[in-house]
Structures are given as structure tokens and as C-alpha cells.
């Protein structure tokens, strides 16, 4: 029998990007919250700039439950499993992957909320790709704007606004929806390389701008400004410039004395009472089983684990998994079409050794529906992103652009000359959910406790392939305008485990096609809320984290405001 703990108002499973934000409005509203986190606290001196450890060894200095339950992947329901990744793309710790993420903190553009209706209006319903299960969000950008704003100021996002209450500022993203005010801090500085790229974009008639980042550019709420030392990709920040929830919203929630953080808590299942309501959470810590009763459960353990936890939590009321009586848990999964990029070789050194992946220049002219698709055979597009970031092992892993072999003296001469002369762009593209792409439990692969791991069945479809080709061509054009002497396109990759996963517990008004309602609460178990990108029905062409955080804040605020209705 598990140890029965003292009941609490709310238990939050996972203190990462989403859960770590939600605890703040909850505790500020006076609710008692228990946060269960599989990882531990990490401190600034855990964040040495060590490429081998961070980028190749999966953070061996920290408890990584995720590495023991890496989802399996197959491209379709008849395909064999793809080779399994050795390291989970996400990490466990208080703050979760916000410790080592790139911290690019975008708002979605207005089109992303209305892909179906806008596409139908402008081009006709036949332009929605066959087999796609995409729906409009239950609300538009204007509903989420308030929460984007709250999160931007709470965790500290730097950036250049492009649209304040409809007033367009060409220094920022002129395609963004209206925001009520400036970012709390100016954008990360440009470098002579990113300036060169911005000039080239302007020469092409495009509108380059610095991207938004949850990275301080000056002292902010007791945290220092970014030192641009690098090692930010899969690396933590030793001066707390990165706005991880571990150094922003979580400590602030702790200061209310109403948040209890339990680390190294391995949540196994969610309990359901005879009334069909959730009653709490089972977890294992240090070999002992516990039951944490709660009036409301918020699941915030990332897309794969959110889905897995629901499917593993079978009960009389939910024989096919929690909140799955409509068979929607795991459906509408997609991983971001972000691998297919372009690299370029320049005839000079770029000095990209310092800086961070969020320090760069973006072009949004070819994203979403920011350009006319009448004569094209796809919908959506891609955001082009070029940045200053280089580490020695990955620098040496560069392509030789057909100009040298892969090893030996000629290779050595090539990298001696070119290790700092190449650049890799990051192209995030529209990705849609499809009937054939979904998550479920793997029938054979288990974690060390014997629980099935999550299985991904998914592959990119024709629309994604066309968007990828189109976006890569635009990137090649940009690099060439900046003086690149060679470019190379990288492959699209698979829809296997990724940092940009979406869906599985989609949000929408229709319970037949969505797991949670417009507020993030289960259509079937009303005191179960779900946080994170698993509720998102479209990806846009930009990083998901800020949207997941804005949604989490909104769900938490809704819970606090309608506490009696949801909790009893």
C-alpha cells in the first residue's frame, strides 16, 4: 500500500516550462500546491560550458528519468520501429528543459489560430491537406495576448516589438499580431555576422529582425544580463540570464509558502474515484510508493509523458485510459518540421564562437500565410533563423561541401581553414496533424518499472515536404545574397522524439475530437487539467514554449477564478 499523504488543493505533475509557470498564479491566488518533479534542483555551478557532457552525454550530472523511457518511433502502423534514440531530447530537473533550451520565446502569429477558416476563406476548403485533422483553435491570438504578456514580463523576455496595438514598427516582426506593450527588455545584441545577414535580407526586399528570447539583456529582477559566453544549446546558464522557470516563476511561487516542491518523484498513475473525477497521483520516491490526494490534478510532463500517463491510468470510469472515452488521447500528434535546414560556407571566418542560438536574425516573410499561396501547392511556410553559436566538436563535424574528404590530411586542412566559416540556419515550418499520426503505448517496450513507454507513429506528409523545400530554397537565396560560396540542404529527419512535439491532448470545444476544453480541462474528467504543447493543435513556424507557458498561465488562472466549480 502506498503512503497516503496529506491532501492538497492542486498537484502539478512536472515543474518544467508549463508546470513551472502555472504554480505562480495558483499560489498567488491562495491555493496550496504540491509540485512533483522527476529531476532535482540544479544550481549555477552545475552549468559548466562542457560540450561533451551537455551535447553528447545527456546531462549525466543530473537525474534523468526521461532517458529511461525514451519514446519509440515508427513511420506508420505497418512499419518496424526506427532505431531508438540514445538520449531523450528533453531533460528532468526543477525548471525542466527550460534549463537547457534555446529560450527563443515567440508568440504565435494570428494565422496559426485560424488555419482552417483563413485558408478556406482565402483559397478554398480544398486547400486543407488531405487526411489532416487540423481545426481552428477555440479562440484567437487576442485571447492569449494577455497571457503572453504576463509570461514575457514574469520570466523576462527580450525582443523588439513589431506591432504595438496595431502600430507597426519595422525594427520588429511586422507580421506579428498586436501586443499591448514593448518587451520588458531590448533584444539580444547583433553581431557583425548577423548584421551582414540582415543587410542581405534587406537587399532581397525581406524584413529581418532580432528574435525574442527568454534571456536577459540587462539586469532584470535580480538576474544578471546575458554574458554571451555560449554553450547555451543544451546548456544551463551559470549566471541565470536564461529565464528558466527554476530561477523565475518557481522560486517566486515558493516565496508564497504555498508551493511544496517534491524532487525525484516518479509519477506512475493518476487515480480516479468512483464518481469519474480524479482524486490524486501515485508516485515513487526513493523506492517508496506514495499517494498524493488532490482536489485538482494538473499534468505538465511534456507531450509524450502527458499522453503516457493518461493511457497508463486506467480505471472503471476510463477503461481505455484517463479522459480517453472518446479515443482522442494520443491523436493529432505532430512534431515540428524543423530538421530540414540549410548550411552555408562563407569565404571568410565568421567568428561565431561566442553568443547563443537565440542571438540572431529572423525573416518571417515566408512563414504562415504572410505571402500569397494562390499559385503554390501547399499551405503554411517557414521562419528563417540565423544565429551566432558554435562549439568545437560540432564545428569539426561540419560538412566539407564536396571540397574535401571526411578525414585525413586534406580534411584537416579543410577544417583548419573553414571550421569558423560555416553557418547553419534553423528553419521552423508549419506542421499539421493528420489522421495517420498518433501516440499510443508501445506494446513491447517498457521502462525499468515495467510500464509501457510512449510509441510515436508518425511521418511527414506532402504538405510538410513542400513547405520544407520551399523554405530551404528561400534560405539558400538568403545565404547566397550574403556571399555564401556553397550551401547544403539537410534532410527532413523523422517525426521521432523531439523538443518540439505537439498534440495528443488537443484543446477544442468539440469533445469528439479534443481531449481538453478551451480552458485546458478535460472534457471527461472535469478536475483534470493538462498543460504544455500537448494541447496545441497547430505549431506555427516558431518555438512552442512561450505559447505553452501562456496557455499554462491561462489554465491556472481559470482554475483559481472558478475554483469551486472545478474543484468540487
Amino acid at each position, binding site marked *: 500500500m502506498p503512503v497516503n499523504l496529506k491532501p492538497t488543493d492542486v498537484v502539478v505533475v512536472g515543474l518544467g516550462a508549463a508546470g513551472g509557470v502555472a504554480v505562480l498564479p495558483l499560489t498567488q491566488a491562495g491555493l496550496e500546491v504540491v509540485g512533483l518533479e522527476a529531476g532535482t534542483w540544479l544550481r549555477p555551478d552545475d552549468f559548466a560550458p562542457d560540450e*561533451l557532457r551537455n551535447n553528447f552525454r545527456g546531462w549525466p550530472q543530473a537525474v534523468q528519468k526521461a532517458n529511461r523511457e525514451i519514446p519509440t518511433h515508427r513511420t506508420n502502423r505497418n512499419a518496424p520501429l526506427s532505431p*531508438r534514440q540514445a538520449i531523450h531530447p528533453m531533460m528532468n530537473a526543477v525548471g525542466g528543459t527550460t534549463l537547457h533550451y534555446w529560450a527563443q520565446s515567440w508568440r504565435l502569429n494570428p494565422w496559426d489560430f485560424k488555419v482552417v477558416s483563413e485558408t478556406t476563406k482565402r483559397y478554398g476548403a480544398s486547400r486543407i491537406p488531405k487526411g489532416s485533422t487540423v481545426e481552428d483553435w477555440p479562440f484567437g491570438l487576442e485571447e492569449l495576448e494577455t497571457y503572453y504578456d504576463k509570461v514575457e514580463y514574469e520570466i523576462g523576455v527580450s525582443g523588439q516589438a513589431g506591432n504595438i496595438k496595431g502600430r507597426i514598427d519595422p525594427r520588429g516582426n511586422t507580421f506579428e499580431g498586436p501586443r499591448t506593450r514593448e518587451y520588458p527588455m531590448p533584444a539580444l545584441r547583433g553581431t557583425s555576422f548577423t548584421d551582414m545577414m540582415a543587410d542581405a535580407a534587406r537587399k532581397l526586399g525581406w524584413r529581418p529582425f532580432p528574435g525574442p528570447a527568454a534571456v536577459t539583456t540587462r539586469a532584470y529582477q535580480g538576474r544578471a544580463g546575458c554574458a554571451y559566453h555560449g554553450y547555451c544549446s543544451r546548456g544551463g546558464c551559470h549566471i541565470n540570464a536564461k529565464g528558466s522557470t527554476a530561477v523565475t516563476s518557481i522560486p517566486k511561487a515558493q516565496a508564497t509558502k504555498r508551493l511544496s516542491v517534491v524532487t525525484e518523484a516518479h509519477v506512475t498513475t493518476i487515480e480516479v474515484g468512483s464518481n469519474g473525477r480524479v482524486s490524486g497521483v501515485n508516485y515513487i520516491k526513493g523506492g517508496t510508493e506514495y499517494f498524493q490526494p488532490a482536489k485538482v490534478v494538473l499534468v505538465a510532463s511534456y507531450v509524450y509523458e502527458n499522453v503516457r500517463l493518461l493511457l497508463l491510468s486506467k480505471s472503471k470510469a476510463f477503461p481505455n485510459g484517463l479522459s480517453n472515452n472518446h479515443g482522442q488521447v494520443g491523436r493529432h500528434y505532430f512534431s515540428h518540421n*524543423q530538421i530540414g535546414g540549410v548550411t552555408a560556407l562563407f569565404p571568410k*571566418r565568421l*567568428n561565431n564562437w561566442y553568443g547563443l542560438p537565440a542571438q540572431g536574425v529572423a525573416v518571417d516573410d515566408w512563414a504562415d500565410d504572410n505571402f500569397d499561396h494562390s499559385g503554390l501547392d501547399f499551405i503554411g511556410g517557414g521562419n528563417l533563423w540565423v544565429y551566432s553559436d558554435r562549439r568545437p*566538436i560540432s564545428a569539426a563535424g561540419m560538412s566539407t561541401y564536396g571540397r574535401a574528404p571526411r578525414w585525413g590530411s586534406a580534411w*584537416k586542412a579543410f577544417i583548419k581553414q573553414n571550421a569558423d566559416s560555416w553557418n547553419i540556419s534553423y528553419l521552423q515550418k508549419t506542421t499539421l496533424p493528420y489522421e495517420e499520426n498518433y501516440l499510443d503505448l508501445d506494446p513491447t517496450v517498457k521502462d525499468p518499472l515495467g510500464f509501457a513507454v510512449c510509441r510515436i507513429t508518425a511521418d511527414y506528409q506532402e504538405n510538410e515536404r513542400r513547405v520544407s523545400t520551399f523554405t530551404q530554397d528561400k534560405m539558400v537565396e538568403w545565404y547566397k545574397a550574403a556571399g555564401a560560396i556553397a550551401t547544403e540542404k539537410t534532410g527532413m529527419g523523422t517525426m521521432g522524439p523531439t523538443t518540439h512535439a505537439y498534440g495528443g491532448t488537443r484543446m477544442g470545444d468539440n469533445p469528439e475530437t479534443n481531449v481538453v476544453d478551451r480552458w485546458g480541462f478535460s472534457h471527461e474528467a472535469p478536475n483534470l487539467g493538462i498543460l504544455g504543447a500537448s494541447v496545441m493543435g497547430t505549431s506555427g513556424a516558431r518555438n512552442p514554449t512561450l505559447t505553452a507557458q501562456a496557455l499554462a498561465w491561462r489554465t491556472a488562472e481559470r482554475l483559481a477564478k472558478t475554483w469551486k466549480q472545478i474543484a468540487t
Partner: protein
Amino acid sequence: MADHSHDGLVSRRDVLKRVGVAGAAAAVPIDAIAQATREPFETLTAVEGATLEAIVARLIPTDANGPGAAEARAARYIDRALGGFLASSRDAYRTGLAGVDTYTRAAKGMAFTQLTAQEQDAVLTDMERNAAKGFSGASFFFNLVLSHTIQGTFCDPFYGGNANFVGWDLLGYPGIRLTATANDQRMDVAPKPTHMSAYDFSMFSRKKPNAR
């Protein structure tokens, strides 16, 4: 964050599945040449270590462009890591290095270490192209060694490779700084190399990771 960096992660299952040398592992004769006086290996046998050292010295050679994988001690990095983080690749190295030896003896009549540099390059090219007869999984093993050699040549010296920063100097990497100024990021500037390991900084020396 994105996960599209060139991390070159290889799963254990891949390693075990793809590397297998046609019954050759037991057939390796002991090559006694000059092993006795050498610095002992931590994980590999003396013969395996000597073969690996010879391989890495051809992958990133010492030449007119300066020191290579030998001076970086890349084989020593791999040897140490095979007893630690790369332990799951230990079997791949056992069969792979034996496979190199077996193939070389069959094709050239002597051990890999006894070949001229040019002959060694020819063997490695055969492996890379999976054209080494009787050596199944040769290209997989070649790629595994190449990726580990790059790690061992360009990693933080804390892990036993990139000795004396020869790898970082080859790339022109100016090294770890805890603050980079706007000037340090200019294209026309080449900041002076710091020649420091991350764990030379007092902030990080308190929590060193496992060096294996």
C-alpha cells in the same frame, strides 16, 4: 530549443546490431612489438590500444598543419571513455579492432600497425566504403571511431583528449570565456586563445563530472 545539432548520437542497439566480424574475434594473434614499455591502457588491451592509436593517427594526422589526433591523445580519450560513458561501445571496439587486424592480415599479410601510412589509409578507406572483404559492419565501426576521434580531439581537455588544446588551436577556437564582449564577436577579430578547461574556472571546479 531545437535538437537538430550534429550530435551524432548512436544507440547501443545500433552498435550491437551492426558490428559483427565474421567469427574473427578469437583469431587475433598477440603482437608483442614494443607493447611492454608503453603507457598502459585503462580499458583496451595493449594490442587493441596500439591499433586504435594507429587508426586515429591516420584519421586526423600529424602533418604540415600541425599536431593531430595522436598529440590530442584521442585514443586515450576513447580508451578511458570505454570504461565509462561509452562502455556500451566496448564490445563494438573489441570486435571492430579485431576485425581491422584480421582484415589487414588477410589483405596485406601483417598487422595494421605495421603498415605504411599509405597502406593504412587504404584499409581505412575500404572500411569506410564497407568494401573490406569479410569485415561486416566495417563502415559502421569506421564511423563510430571517427565520431569518437573527433570527440577526443576537440573535447574539453578534462576528459583526457584535446591535450594541450591542440584540437581547439587547429580549429582556431579561442576557448572558453565566461564573458564574451561585443568585440569578441566581431568577424574581423580573432580573440586570443584562453587555453582553459571549463573546470579550470573556480565556479565549476567544485562540481566536476565523471571524467570517464
